[in-house]
């Protein structure tokens, strides 16, 4: 079944369509996905730049506000007052407006003059550890930027901030940024403005935001950049600020809807961004989902890498685009497979049906039906085969008919021969006895000297006519003899030459030239010498009888030209030829055209029997008025059938 043309066709159709489908599926899907990813990556890169601008603007805003604040006269004068002055009120107003988490005014020795928020009295407050202040004192000019706030620094600013900065990590995560038990450092955006008086720093005004758990910055970024786009209930864009590798402010939500602060970035990102200081733009898992992400390091005011800024776009919508594309491709492929199967089925049907019909037809032929139905002849090249098959059938039919005819005539012929044979044998036996008496008395009487001439003449006639009867009977008997040939192996040329010599005189008398041309080096043949001789002699007598004076007879031998090895004896004459109507009766017993007394018409029928028993054949070619050629073909080796002895005895 699997080797049938149909299944082969179907399988190849299926294979091709599946292959093409699969390739377009993979290549197409990948192409679409790649272009989407690269486009999204570009977008994320730009988004990160925007986020960076927004982030940096925050510090600049604070700096500008503090600069404006420090220009007031009350600031400078407050530097020389011991007790808290109304300046604190103004500072608190500024801090409120900017949403500052901490702010204060310090002396050059970092001792605090005033601070916003609740904290111990100024006298008892420790000097500030705020690195923005330190940087401003050192540089003697305003600074703004990111700062790292150790837990102690936070506590110095306000105990509230320590609480806000602290993050529970459940489950506990291994962070690259070690934090003391129960405490977490803070990341801040801060600015510090030195208050100068005649070239020397008299104090510093500072303020800033603690980013830990801060939501406005990241939300602003997310809003500005992603415009609160949502996909299946989740916001498409996310933004996060890391303290080292630690998420301290983010719009990424955990499963329970809480912001995913307190979790860490993947090691790969940390290595690339924090350790190598490069940008990262790639797919990455953020908390639970795949995002197309962009990270870059955050430097503090001293140029140290203290954290990372991140924006990411949920990959799910693009994965869905890919899934949809893949599904469309799959659908197209399946449809293609279906069409291929259908076309393959129809096509193979068109091919296979006539083949099956031919097969069925040959089965019919082998069962004996020589005119099977092979269906309509196709116009394709298969039609050639069908036509050839039909031709073959016609040829077969014709041959069958011919063979039937031939075997019928042969049967009739041999039946005729057998019945004539039996009759002849019986008659001959009975006739020969009276014939003996007739011959005896005629001859004995003719010996007498006292016969009157007329009586003698009559008697002589009796004698001649009796000889005729004797000849006829002898011919009959020859015909009737169905004996096996007594074979010997002889040179054919010698035998034929003997026959020619026997006939030479007669030919001479008739004025007909008789020639013999024997082919040299003929193979020997195994035949009954006497029988073959009688065949050749009969052919020569027939030729002589048919040929006028001045005609010629050519006897020749040759190698057989037919496929099986054999030799041929031909007797050609330039005689009267044989009429077409006589042709078919030529080998019938008693068929003769010769005048009464000259021929019995047994010569060729006896010859045919002899040659047949030798496994050979006789053929005739004749043109009326031009002459005839009789050819006897005899096999060279294939006459084992003529030796009747069983194989065991043949050796002797």
């Amino acid at each position, binding site marked *: 079944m699997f080797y049938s043309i149909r299944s082969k066709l179907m399988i190849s159709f299926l294979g091709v369509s599946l292959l093409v489908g699969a390739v377009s599926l993979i290549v197409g899907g990948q192409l679409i996905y790649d272009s989407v990813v690269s486009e999204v990556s570009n977008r994320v890169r730009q988004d990160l730049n925007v986020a960076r601008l927004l982030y940096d603007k925050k510090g600049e805003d604070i700096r500008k506000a503090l600069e404006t604040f420090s220009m007031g006269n009350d600031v400078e004068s407050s530097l020389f007052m011991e007790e808290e002055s109304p300046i604190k009120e103004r500072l608190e107003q500024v801090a409120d407006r900017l949403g500052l988490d901490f702010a204060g005014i310090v002396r050059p020795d970092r001792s605090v003059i005033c601070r916003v928020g609740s904290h111990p009295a100024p006298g008892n407050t420790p000097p500030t550890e705020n690195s923005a202040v330190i940087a401003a004192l050192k540089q003697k000019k305003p600074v703004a930027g990111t700062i790292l706030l150790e837990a102690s620094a936070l506590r110095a600013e306000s105990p509230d901030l320590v609480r806000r900065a602290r993050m529970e990590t459940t489950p506990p995560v291994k962070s690259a940024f070690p934090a003391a038990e129960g405490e977490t450092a803070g990341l801040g955006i801060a600015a510090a403005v030195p208050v100068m008086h005649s070239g020397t720093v008299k104090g510093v005004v500072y303020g800033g935001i603690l980013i830990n758990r801060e939501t406005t910055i990241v939300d602003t970024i997310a809003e500005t950049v992603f415009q609160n786009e949502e996909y299946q209930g989740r916001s498409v864009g996310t933004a996060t600020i890391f303290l080292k590798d630690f998420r301290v402010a983010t719009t990424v939500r955990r499963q329970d809807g809480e912001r995913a602060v307190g979790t860490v970035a993947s090691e790969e990102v940390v290595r690339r961004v924090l350790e190598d200081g490069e940008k990262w733009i790639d797919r990455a898992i953020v908390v639970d989902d795949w995002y197309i992400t962009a990270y870059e390091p955050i430097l503090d005011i001293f140029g140290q890498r203290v954290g990372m800024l991140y924006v990411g776009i949920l990959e799910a919508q693009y994965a869905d685009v890919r899934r949809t594309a893949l599904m469309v491709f799959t659908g197209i492929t399946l449809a293609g497979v279906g069409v291929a199967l259908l076309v393959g089925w129809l096509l193979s049907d068109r091919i296979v049906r006539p083949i099956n019909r031919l097969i069925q037809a040959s089965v019919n032929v082998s069962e004996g039906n020589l005119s099977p139905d092979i269906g309509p002849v196709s116009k394709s090249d298969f039609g050639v085969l069908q036509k050839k098959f039909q031709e073959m059938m016609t040829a077969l039919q014709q041959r069958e008919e011919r063979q039937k005819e031939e075997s019928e005539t042969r049967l009739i012929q041999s039946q005729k021969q057998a019945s004539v044979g039996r009759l002849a044998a019986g008659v001959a*036996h009975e006739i020969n*006895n009276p014939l*003996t*008496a*007739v011959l*005896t008395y005629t*001859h*004995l009487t003719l010996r007498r000297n006292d016969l009157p001439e007329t009586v003698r003449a009559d008697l002589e006639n009796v004698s001649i006519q009796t000889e005729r009867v004797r000849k006829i009977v002898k011919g009959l008997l020859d015909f009737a003899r169905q*004996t096996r040939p007594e074979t010997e192996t002889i040179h054919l040329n010698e035998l034929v030459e003997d026959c020619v010599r026997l006939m030479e005189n007669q030919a001479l008398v008739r004025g007909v030239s008789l020639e013999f041309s024997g082919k040299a080096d003929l193979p020997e043949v195994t035949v009954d010498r006497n029988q073959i001789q009688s065949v050749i002699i009969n052919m020569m007598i027939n030729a002589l009888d048919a040929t006028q004076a001045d005609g010629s007879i050519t006897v020749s031998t040759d190698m057989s030209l037919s496929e099986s090895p054999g030799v041929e004896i031909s007797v050609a004459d330039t005689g009267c030829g044989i009429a077409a109507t006589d042709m078919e009766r030529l080998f019938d017993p008693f068929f003769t055209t010769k005048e009464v007394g000259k021929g019995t018409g047994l010569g060729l029928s006896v010859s045919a029997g002899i040659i047949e028993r030798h496994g050979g054949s006789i053929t005739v070619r004749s043109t009326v008025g031009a002459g005839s050629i009789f050819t006897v073909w005899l096999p060279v080796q294939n006459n084992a059938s003529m030796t009747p002895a069983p194989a065991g005895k043949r050796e002797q």
Partner: protein
Amino acid sequence: MHVLIVDDDPMVAESCRRILGTEAIRVTVAGNAAEAKAALASDDSFDLMLTDIKMPKSDGFQLVEMVRKKHPDLRILIMTGYLTPETTRRGRTIGAYGFVEKPFTPDELIAAVHNARK
């Protein structure tokens, strides 16, 4: 010379007698195998036996076989109207000297008989 002719057809036997008579050959005629045997038993002067093959009762071949045993010196010619190769072969194996084919002319018979004589 004394020749025994064995033939069931009296005309053939008579023909032989007449032909051989012209050569002054003594002829005895037997109409069947039994008569032939009787003649051979009663007379030992025969030089030659000429016998037909196809005869009623016992056929010529049996007669030849028997005669060859009892009279090994007697030459035998077989006369037949239907001389097939089988007849020749069989005749030779049972010891016939020669064959005469019927019908024959007087000259042919005389030649055959003289030829069979030593």
